[in-house]
């Protein structure tokens, strides 16, 4: 409403979503260094060696570190970007099923090439993943089962086959030291030059596709029926997206592992979904959050002397999500709490203002000051409370304090706002009794709430409908802000005597 210092607060927050993002980043940086002590315990490292490890990582001199970090960043970007489409299409579980369904393909690729050949594993995994999604579609179309059951079936079935195959491979003479077990929980340190090339290719294809087909992906995701009517090949777009997702999942397997790779699809996208209301920004944010979680997970894994990377990446992503959940500019829990708090502060302040006005009104505006005692008595509070409330008014420029006789003097702003509130209250009471035929002794509570939120144009409309009435249902005058400025306290005789009760 007309109180600039109050409305400014939510705006400041809303116009700076990046401020929140920055805060989050700082929080994460702090987090990145905080667990060092913890990691020392886990990896039985001294604080010193943690520091050297961190330096080794950050200086990027070690080629293994460079591969691991580059791979983690790339997988974060492609998973975040494509995961955003899963989240808005409500296909999050498809990502989960897809990521588990690739495991038999990984094992088959390994068995076929007899080594950890990235290309063979990639092809095997993509085929298995797509087979998984096709089986889901098939179950959905030929039986009465719905999507969730079909996904659950495929996820568990394919994963079980994969686990059996992986165990068999580990029993083979060549398989024992192959590192196939790393595909379960992920190890960024195992990323080699071949893996990295593959990951770069996948990230490139993902980014290029989203850039080139943004409008097709958007319309097919938002309103498939409409897209089909406008001639877009919705089914082809869906399968293209699934193929890309399979690429992203498979390229991320090495670092994140089969078990948790779906979290890298969902978590950054879910955080981004809370942070913005526009698709293109959500894509950017999801890719960015994916990047940060990837890099951070890789770093933490390195600090903890090769703890599994997947869980650490997912933990980083989840921390970012928690940040978005709490501090997102519009949907954040803390943000909303804070807005609510500032709103209830405003309402308390406005109620004090109103009380001061009512005290003045009751003595027909003889004398300008209201003492703390008068305020306390009227509000049935202690003197301390009253003084605290008065200082709150002073802080918002609604009043000044006369220090000697301890009285409150309203400033022009304060008087204006007070008159508006009293007017809103009495107008609303009158409206309820007239238009809704509610008895006069039922309307006070309602008006107590509505007086703080009535906008100027609504007030105009109310005044018009009530024929510019000047007396409320209890017989008290309805003041108008301008008249008060003109008349002020020096012309009390214009007003009829005050009403009864409080």
């Amino acid at each position, binding site marked *: 409403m007309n109180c600039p210092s109050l409305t400014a607060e939510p705006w400041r927050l809303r116009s700076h979503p990046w401020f929140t993002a920055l805060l989050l980043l700082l929080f994460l940086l702090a987090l990145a260094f905080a667990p060092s002590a913890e990691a020392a315990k886990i990896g039985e490292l001294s604080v010193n060696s943690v520091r050297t490890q961190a330096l080794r990582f950050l200086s990027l001199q070690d080629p293994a570190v460079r591969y691991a970090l580059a791979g983690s960043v790339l997988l974060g970007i492609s998973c975040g970007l494509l995961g955003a489409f899963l989240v808005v299409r409500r296909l999050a579980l498809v990502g989960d099923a897809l990521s588990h369904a690739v495991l038999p393909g990984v094992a088959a690729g390994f068995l076929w090439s007899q080594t950890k050949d990235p290309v063979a594993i990639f092809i095997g995994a993509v085929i298995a993943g797509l087979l998984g999604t096709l089986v889901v579609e098939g179950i959905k179309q030929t039986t009465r089962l719905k999507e969730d059951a079909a996904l659950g079936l495929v996820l568990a079935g394919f994963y079980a086959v994969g686990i059996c195959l992986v165990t068999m491979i580990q029993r083979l003479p060549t398989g024992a030291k192959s590192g196939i077990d790393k595909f379960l929980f992920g190890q960024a340190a195992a990323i080699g030059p071949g893996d990295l090339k593959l990951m770069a290719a996948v990230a490139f294809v993902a980014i290029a596709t989203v850039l080139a087909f943004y*409008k097709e992906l958007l319309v097919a995701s*938002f309103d498939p*029926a409409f897209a089909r009517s*406008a001639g877009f090949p919705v089914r082809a777009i869906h399968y293209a997206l699934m193929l890309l997702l399979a690429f992203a999942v498979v390229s991320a397997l090495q670092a994140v592992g089969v078990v948790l790779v779906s979290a890298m699809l969902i978590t950054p996208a879910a955080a981004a979904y809370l942070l913005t*209301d526009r698709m293109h920004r959500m894509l950017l944010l999801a890719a960015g959050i994916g990047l940060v979680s990837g890099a951070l997970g890789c770093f933490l894994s390195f600090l903890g002397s090769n703890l599994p990377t997947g869980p650490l990446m997912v933990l980083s992503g989840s921390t970012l999500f928690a940040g978005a959940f709490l501090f997102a500019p519009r949907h954040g829990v803390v943000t909303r709490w804070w807005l609510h708090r500032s709103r209830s502060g405003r309402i308390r302040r406005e109620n004090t203002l109103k009380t001061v006005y009512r005290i003045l009104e009751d003595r027909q505006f003889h004398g300008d000051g209201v003492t703390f005692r008068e305020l306390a008595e009227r509000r049935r509070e202690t003197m301390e409370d009253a003084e605290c409330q008065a200082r709150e008014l002073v802080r918002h420029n609604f009043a000044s304090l006369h220090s000697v006789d301890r009285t409150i003097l309203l400033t022009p702003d304060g008087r204006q706002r007070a008159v508006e509130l009293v007017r809103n209250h009495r107008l609303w009471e009158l409206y309820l009794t007239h238009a809704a035929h509610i008895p006069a002794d039922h309307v006070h509570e309602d008006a107590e709430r509505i007086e703080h939120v009535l906008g100027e144009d609504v007030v105009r409309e109310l005044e018009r409908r009530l024929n510019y009435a000047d007396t409320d249902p209890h017989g008290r005058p309805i003041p108008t802000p301008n008249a008060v400025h003109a008349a002020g306290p020096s012309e009390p005789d214009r007003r009829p005597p005050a009403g009864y009760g409080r």
Partner: protein
Amino acid sequence: MNTPAPETPAPPLEIHDLTVAYQRRPVLWGVDLVVPPGKLVGIIGPNGAGKSTLIKACMGVVPIAGGWVRIFGSPLGRAHRRVGYVPQRESVDWDFPVNVMDLVLMGRYGKLGLFRRPSRADRDIARDCLEKVGMLPYANRQIANLSGGQQQRVFLARALAQESDLYFMDEPFAGVDAATEAAIVTLLHELRDRGRTILVVHHDLPTARNYFDMLLLLNLRRVAFGPTDEVFTYELLQKTYGGRLTILSEVAEAVRQRG
């Protein structure tokens, strides 16, 4: 199959012996229909009569089991640009991260080629369409913050932005306030007066009589089609809504069970 004679312009919509089935259960049987240009046509029938299915089949949104559909004389695949669509409001997720402007711009997508983004001209068109439905002040609002009537107006603006010659609208009056309903009716009449053909799936019998030039009475198959005055009779409505056609759905059930 007889093709229309070359000298007469092809009708906006021609349906011949159209059958549509969901999981082998027919929901539309052998529908024939020729809609003349510049008409506002209401599609009326009880729940489950296949009204939405009919218009979805016309646009290729659901597959056709038998028969054919021609739009301005050409098969579906080549006519998409001349067709506009207002789906049911509940068919989309209103929490989707787009604002009103983004949504209306989607109406322009079908006219853009591959790799093309909406241009300034497209934005101007979208803005005009928003203004026509009285939603321009809400252009930057997230769609989740709209009321039901506002959502329907935005959907209508998107269809207007398609600048089509033939429109299909699926219950545009469902769950909207009286003011929005009146505004939509006015817009539909304007479109009709500019020579557009509009098919509207409609639920409310009393208003149907006043809103539409022609009515299609539908219950699994075509009951009647013609000018509102001729078709809106007790006998035909009784035939559409009454129990006489239940035999059809029983046959449909039997076909499904035999699989």
